[in-house]
Structures are given as structure tokens and as C-alpha cells.
């Protein structure tokens, strides 16, 4: 048997990803957030390795509107898979069939998987599958991907070799006449199979298709004339004609195949929404949920787990046993130092976060899987738009409080290019779980008993996001009118345990992998740098290579209050992974035997405000290499990545400097230079936020609306 490529297409939230997982057994995440399938994934069928399933992003149309639609359309037109498996959400069939009709127009053999049929009964709806298959002229299989029902008959249908010729839907005769005449103009330019698709796209005046076909002037004129005539007949513009024709066709299909028993009744999902997205209750509920997520993951369960890992597992058990074994084997003392202090100490410090991270992603996974995440976007949009971000930006920001890497990756769900780029740039300002170590260190040692020190770090991140949103929108990079926000709210469903377990597993595995590789390597490097000099002779800390590097850069950080080689080295190693900041400080201060001793050494070396400036700088500056890598991947462009990293580091420097210098002013011990620096920093901020004029694109009069938003702030 020959190999066959099948494209998996369907609306966002049609259960496409669940079906993909079920058919291929691939380790992939399933969520309820619209557009969760953002990457192109493929896999061979579990039950038949000859069939390659190519997962397309969730789309509503083949119009060139979103990046997802562009990807899907390009793939279908240029790669032309042998078959399309179209997942149709039976509970939402009218809108789902809109895409099906467009897929039929490509003339690629199609199989419809009518998903979520188990939910139809609750909706009081019945669908006659046979009739639907007959009317569409393609096989229709009723399935439930969630309940794993009828999957085998779907596979049997996919395996059938002789696919029926596609009969594309015929619309209003007046429209068909116009399309037929456009098709004539395409004779010999596109293959017969593709003529229908191109004719419709030309009728819709799709600019991309026009550019792609490069028709000569005569044909172009003729087609333009045909469209004009049709528009006159229908008294509507050409794209409306097509859309109305498709929806009319669907209504017709529905009339024949769908029976609605009983009127629309409030489903459970609607009733939940009445409370959850209620005008007055939505925000309190939202903050309650977020508080619960953090309480559970950072404090109670996650916190207890982390304490155990830090104090018991990596505090006593592993180092003690390792020491015993190493001594028994008569390992050279320097190797013992490397393994116990460098590797076990460092990796342990990182792995201590695992329980917190697992708990956090467990909570986020549940929220995402049950459908609450998209309600968050709905509730938060108004607030975020004030800062020139979309409601969808909230999710990357939220995920970034766990880890910036998935946070950056989740920006793909934002439709607007500008909003996405800005969110990528700002999302790592949120304190991730790794930065939590720095927060915990500074708050725990320098601000003991001051309960506001740690939350203030979160506020700092949020303020950085808000101010940057306001500032960046004024630059030519992000100027322009606000982007539309059109989103579907998926029906709530009970989260699926295996989805969530897979989600948590993937996230934690990624984290452990990072701890096991990059951080392991960097630990060895730091250990080497801090225990040897340039001649590779073992030396005490204060004459090591790390010290030389740190001392070289220290003057730059003097205005921030920590122009000291140890803190600077911690900043440098923080680039590898933010967890390293703490570990490096620990190593640089000669591995104090107890936490109390470490605290003593630190408080002797830095003032509390210098420590807070150190915290602020690490919070906001360029993220770790893994996050920078993710940024580069998402931007797809080194220039943008540098821009983002540069902006972040500059802002971090400015913020840290202001914190430290202002604290000097307040405490009354300042020099002329301090005053100068504060004035410089404040005026930069004031200029950027208030006085800087928005960039005016040459022909854009929409900036006025932005001005008015300003006055409301």
C-alpha cells in the first residue's frame, strides 16, 4: 500500500487536537483556548503507519486574514494533500460547515468527522448523517473524540483508496453564472481541479490570489467587469455575495439534516457564563481564581514540596550520601568539590522549584482545559487595551509567571502581528518561577518581616508591562490602529485528566531537562570560573576568573548600587538561567555552610535598597537564554530579538538605577551625581510616557482616538 498524506482541518475548538492525539498517539497538548493548535504537527496513524496525518491550525475560513489561515491555505494549495479530514463540531455545525464548503472548493477529497455528537442530545438536536453525507457528496462519520467513540469507522473511511470525486457546492444560479464566466478566463492558467477555488477567490477580489495568478490586463479587466455586474444584480459587494451564498447553502443543508427539538434553552455552559462573566462578579471571581492558583502552587502544596526538596532531599540526603560514596571511592578533593558544591548544590537549587512548577501548571492546565482561559481574555480585554495589549495578551503574561518560555510560545494565539510582537517583548517582565528565587532571596534576607517586598516585585513587573505598552505604542514599530478582537467562547467542559497530566508532564519535563543540561553545564562552568584563575590554577574565590570578569563590568553597575564583582557575576550567570543568580552568589560568597551565615555575608556586602535594585534589574533585564531562544523562534528574526533584549535591558537598568538613587536621596546621603542621575532617569520616564508624541504614520488619522484614551487614564 502506498503512503498517503491527510490534512486535518477544522475550526478552532472543534476537538481537532483531541482527535489528532487519539489517532496518532502523539504527545500533544489539548486545550480549550481558541487556536491552541498553533504549530504544524504531523504524525502517523497509530493503527496504520501508511497514513500521515498533518495537523493544520484551527481556522474559520480560508481567507488570508490570520497567520493561521495563511498557513493552512498555503499548505492546501501548494502541497495538495491526498485527502482532508475535516473535523466539524456538531454542536456548532452552522459555522463549522462554512469552512467545510470552502475546503470542498479546493477539490481535494474530503472526509467529514462530525465530532462531539455525544453532546447533541443535551442540546436537543439530531443530525441525519446519511443525508448530510449525501448532500455534501462526501463521507460523514459521527464520532466523539473525547469519548473515543466510533474512531475505528473513521479510520476505515480514511483508509479507503478510491476517493470519490468532489462535487463542489452550487450556489445561487445568478452567482454561478458569474463564476462560470470567471472560470472561462482561467482556462489554461490553473488546472481544472483548482479552477473553482480560484474563480471564487477572484470573485471575492482576494488580493493575494490576484497577485499569485498574474493575469494579463485584458483578463483582469474582464473579470472586474463580471464582478461589477454581479454586484449590481445582488445589490451587495462581491465578498458579501459569496458569504451569504455559503450561509444560505448551509441553512438549506441544516433544514434537511438537522432537527432541533425544543427551542434554545440555557445550557449549563450558558448558566456558568451568566455568573462567571457577569458584569459585577467577573473580576472578583477572576481574582479569586488567580489567588487560589497562586496560593495552591506557590504557598501550600508547591511550597511544602519545594521546602522538602531543598531542605531534605538536596539539603541532607543526596549531598551526605554523595559525600560518603565519593570518599569511599577516594575521589580527588577538587572533584568532590565540583560534584557536591557545584553540581548537586546548583542543580538542587533549581529542582527545588519543580513541585511549585508542577502545581502551577496543574492549575493552569485545568483552567485552560475547562474553557475558563478564554473567558479571562473576554473579561480582561478592556483593561489590557488601555495599555495597547489585547485581552489575549493576558494569557502569555500569566503563563510567564510560571516560565517565560511557554509564555512566549503561547503568544501565537494573538491574531494581530503587532500585539503579538509587543506581548513577546513584555511578557518576560513578569517574574517567572526562576526569578522567584531572587525575589525570595532578597525579600527573605534583606526585608525580613516586610510582607510587601515580595508582592512589590510582581507589581514592578506589571508596571513595567503597562508603561512599556504605553511607551512602545508611540514608537514607529508599534504605532497604528488597534487590532480587532473577534473570539469564540468555547463551551465549558470538565477537564480531562489525561490532558492535564500530559500538560503538567510536558512542562515539568522541559524544566527538568533544562536543569539537567544547560544549568548543569553552567554550574560546572561557574564552578570552574570561580575556583580557577586564567592559568587554570586552583585559587580562592577572590582571585578567580569570575572575579576578573565581574570586576571588569562592575563599574557599569555602580550607579545601581551593586557595582561589585559577585553581584555582577550573578547577573551574568543569570543569563544562562535566572536560578543561577542565587547559586552564583552562594558560590561567590564561598558557599556559606548555613542560610544564616549566607544572610549575614550578604547584608554585610549590600544595603537593602541595593539588593532591591539587584532584584529589579534581574527581574526586568534580558531573560535567560532559553527564553531569548523562544523569542527568536517566535519573532523569526534576529533584529527583533535584539530589539526586545535591548529594550528590556535598558528598562531594567533605568528602573534599578532609579530605585537605588532615589533611595539615596530619601535617606539623605547623596551627592550631586545622585541628584543628576535621578533627574535624568525621571525625565526619561516622563518624556517617554507623557510628552513623547505618538508616531504618526504618513496617512493615518486614527491617532486622535489614542489621545482621548490617554486623557481617561
Amino acid at each position, binding site marked *: 500500500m502506498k503512503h498517503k498524506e491527510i490534512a486535518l482541518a477544522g475550526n478552532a475548538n472543534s476537538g481537532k487536537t483531541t482527535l489528532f492525539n487519539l489517532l496518532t498517539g502523539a504527545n500533544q497538548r489539548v486545550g480549550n483556548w481558541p487556536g491552541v493548535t498553533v504549530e504544524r504537527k504531523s504524525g502517523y496513524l497509530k493503527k496504520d503507519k501508511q497514513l500521515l496525518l498533518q495537523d493544520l491550525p484551527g481556522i474559520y475560513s480560508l481567507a488570508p486574514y490570520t497567520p493561521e489561515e495563511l498557513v493552512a491555505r498555503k499548505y492546501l494549495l501548494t502541497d495538495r494533500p491526498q485527502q482532508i479530514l475535516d473535523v466539524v463540531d456538531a454542536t456548532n455545525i452552522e459555522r463549522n460547515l*462554512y469552512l467545510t464548503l470552502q475546503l470542498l472548493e479546493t477539490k481535494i477529497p474530503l472526509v467529514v468527522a462530525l465530532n462531539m455528537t455525544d453532546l447533541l442530545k443535551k442540546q436537543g438536536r439530531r443530525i441525519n448523517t446519511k443525508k448530510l453525507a449525501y448532500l455534501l457528496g462526501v463521507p460523514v462519520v459521527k464520532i466523539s473524540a473525547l469519548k473515543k467513540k466510533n474512531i475505528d469507522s473513521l479510520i476505515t473511511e480514511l483508509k479507503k483508496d478510491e476517493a470519490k470525486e468532489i462535487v463542489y457546492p452550487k450556489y445561487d444560479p445568478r452567482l454561478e453564472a458569474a463564476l462560470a464566466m470567471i472560470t472561462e478566463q482561467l482556462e489554461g492558467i490553473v488546472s481544472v481541479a483548482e479552477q473553482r477555488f480560484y474563480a471564487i477567490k477572484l470573485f471575492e477580489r482576494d488580493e493575494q490570489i490576484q497577485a499569485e495568478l498574474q493575469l494579463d490586463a485584458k483578463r483582469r479587466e474582464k473579470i472586474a467587469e463580471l464582478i461589477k455586474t454581479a454586484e449590481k444584480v445582488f445589490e451587495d459587494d462581491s465578498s458579501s455575495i459569496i458569504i451569504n451564498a455559503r450561509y444560505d447553502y448551509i441553512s438549506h443543508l441544516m433544514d434537511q439534516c438537522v432537527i432541533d427539538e425544543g427551542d434554545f434553552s440555557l445550557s449549563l455552559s450558558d448558566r456558568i457564563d451568566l455568573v462567571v462573566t457577569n458584569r459585577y462578579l467577573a473580576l472578583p471571581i477572576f481574582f479569586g481564581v488567580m489567588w487560589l492558583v497562586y496560593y495552591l502552587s506557590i504557598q501550600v502544596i508547591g511550597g511544602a514540596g519545594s521546602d522538602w526538596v531543598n531542605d531534605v532531599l538536596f539539603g541532607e540526603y543526596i549531598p551526605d550520601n554523595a559525600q560518603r560514596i565519593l570518599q569511599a571511592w577516594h575521589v580527588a578533593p577538587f572533584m568532590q568539590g565540583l560534584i557536591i558544591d557545584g553540581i548537586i548544590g546548583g542543580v538542587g537549587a533549581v529542582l527545588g522549584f519543580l513541585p511549585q512548577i508542577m502545581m502551577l501548571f496543574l492549575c493552569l492546565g485545568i483552567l485552560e482545559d475547562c474553557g475558563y482561559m478564554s473567558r479571562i481574555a*473576554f473579561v480582561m480585554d478592556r483593561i489590557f487595551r488601555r495599555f495597547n495589549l489585547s485581552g489575549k495578551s493576558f494569557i502569555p503574561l500569566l503563563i510567564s509567571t510560571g516560565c517565560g518560555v511557554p509564555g512566549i510560545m503561547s503568544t501565537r494565539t494573538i491574531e494581530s502581528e503587532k500585539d503579538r510582537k509587543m506581548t513577546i517583548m513584555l511578557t518576560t517582565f513578569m517574574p517567572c518561577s526562576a526569578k522567584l528565587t531572587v525575589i525570595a532571596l532578597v525579600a527573605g534576607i534583606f526585608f525580613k518581616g516586610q510582607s510587601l517586598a515580595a508582592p512589590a516585585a510582581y507589581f514592578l513587573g506589571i508596571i513595567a508591562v503597562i508603561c512599556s505598552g504605553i511607551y512602545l505604542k508611540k514608537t514607529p514599530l508599534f504605532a497604528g490602529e488597534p487590532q480587532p*478582537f473577534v473570539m469564540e467562547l468555547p463551551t465549558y467542559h470538565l477537564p480531562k485528566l489525561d490532558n492535564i497530566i500530559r500538560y503538567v508532564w510536558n512542562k515539568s519535563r522541559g524544566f527538568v531537562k533544562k536543569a539537567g543540561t544547560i544549568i548543569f553545564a553552567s554550574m560546572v562552568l561557574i564552578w570552574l570560573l570561580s575556583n580557577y584563575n586564567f592559568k587554570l590554577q586552583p585559587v580562592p574565590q577572590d582571585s578567580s576568573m569570575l572575579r576578573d570578569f565581574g570586576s571588569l563590568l562592575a563599574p557599569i553597575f555602580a550607579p545601581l548600587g551593586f557595582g561589585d564583582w559577585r553581584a555582577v557575576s550573578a547577573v551574568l550567570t543569570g543569563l544562562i538561567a535566572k536560578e543561577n543568580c542565587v547559586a552564583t552568589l552562594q558560590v561567590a560568597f564561598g558557599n556559606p555552610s548555613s542560610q544564616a551565615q549566607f544572610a549575614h555575608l550578604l547584608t554585610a556586602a549590600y544595603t537593602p535598597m541595593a539588593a532591591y535594585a539587584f532584584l529589579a534589574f534581574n527581574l526586568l533585564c534580558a531573560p535567560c537564554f532559553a527564553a531569548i531562544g523562544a523569542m527568536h523562534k517566535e519573532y523569526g528574526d534576529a533584529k527583533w530579538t535584539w530589539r526586545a533584549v535591548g529594550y528590556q535591558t535598558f528598562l531594567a537598568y533605568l528602573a534599578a538605577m532609579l530605585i537605588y538613587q532615589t533611595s539615596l536621596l530619601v535617606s539623605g546621603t547623596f551627592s550631586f551625581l545622585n541628584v543628576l542621575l535621578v533627574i535624568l532617569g525621571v525625565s526619561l520616564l516622563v518624556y517617554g510616557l507623557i510628552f513623547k508624541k505618538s508616531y504618526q504614520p504618513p496617512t493615518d488619522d486614527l491617532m486622535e482616538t489614542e489621545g482621548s484614551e490617554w486623557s481617561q487614564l
Partner: protein
Amino acid sequence: MQKLSEVSQRGKYIVTAVSGDHQLKKRLNEMGMVRGKVITVITLNTHDSGLMIHFQGQRLALSEGIAVNIEVVGIEELAGQEIKPLSEIELKQSCLIAEIGGRKELKRRLMDMGLTQNTLVTLINTAPLGDPLEIKVRGYKLTLRKSEADLIKVRKIDL
């Protein structure tokens, strides 16, 4: 509001209610004749002749007996109603889309989601700060910002 059998002018009408016994109601339902659908009357019911309508791309002949059970409102009648942006409609109010403005891509996107002329939409919810809005259209829920809802001009209709 009037009975379809009593319509005295050709043109577009909206179905506002379907009555009659269970059997008939079900049949009309199956034909797609439900609240909020738009029909075009082609020939009038003169002298109890029954009437011909255009409905979702098909021509249908209806006997007077059936037409009596269908209540309609003329689009012409509605045309007298002021056109308002969707953003200014009260909660739970149904309305018909009169036109969609805005940039080409945005308009296209809204239309792709099923928001076309003479489609019934109902405002069902708003976010805490009154923005964005949640509407029901073609049997599913859609979220829109106020600024987009501003582009969608509608006429109120009481169903």
C-alpha cells in the same frame, strides 16, 4: 407584525413567530422556517391562492393554511426603525444586521463568522467594564469589542 397570509406587498420579511399544532410546527421547523429567518415574498396571497416565497436559495409555495401560522415583520417596516450600532443595543435585545462598515479585512472577518446582512444577533452579555460584548449569532457565541460592534449597524426587532 402581521400574518404571512395577510402580507400585501412583495419583498423581504422576517419570521417572528411560528404557531399552529405540533405537527405543523415541526414540519415548518424542519424546513428552516424559524424565528429570525428572512424570507422574500415573490407572489402575494390574493384570493386565498397561497403564496410563493424565496427562502435560503429555494423557492417555496405555501398554502394559505400554512401562511396563517407564520407571523412576519416586513424589512421595509423595520427600515423605518433607526439604524444603530450594535454597541448601543440593550442587553438581551435581538436585532437584525443592516450593514457592516470598517476596514476590508475586518469586515471580511466579521462576515466570515456569519455576521452578514439580515442575520439575527442577540446581545447576551458584556464584560465587567461594558466591553467587550458577547453576542449570539447563528447558534453560537461570539465575543466582540465595542469598537468592532460599532461597525455593525443593526435594527432592533422584537421577537
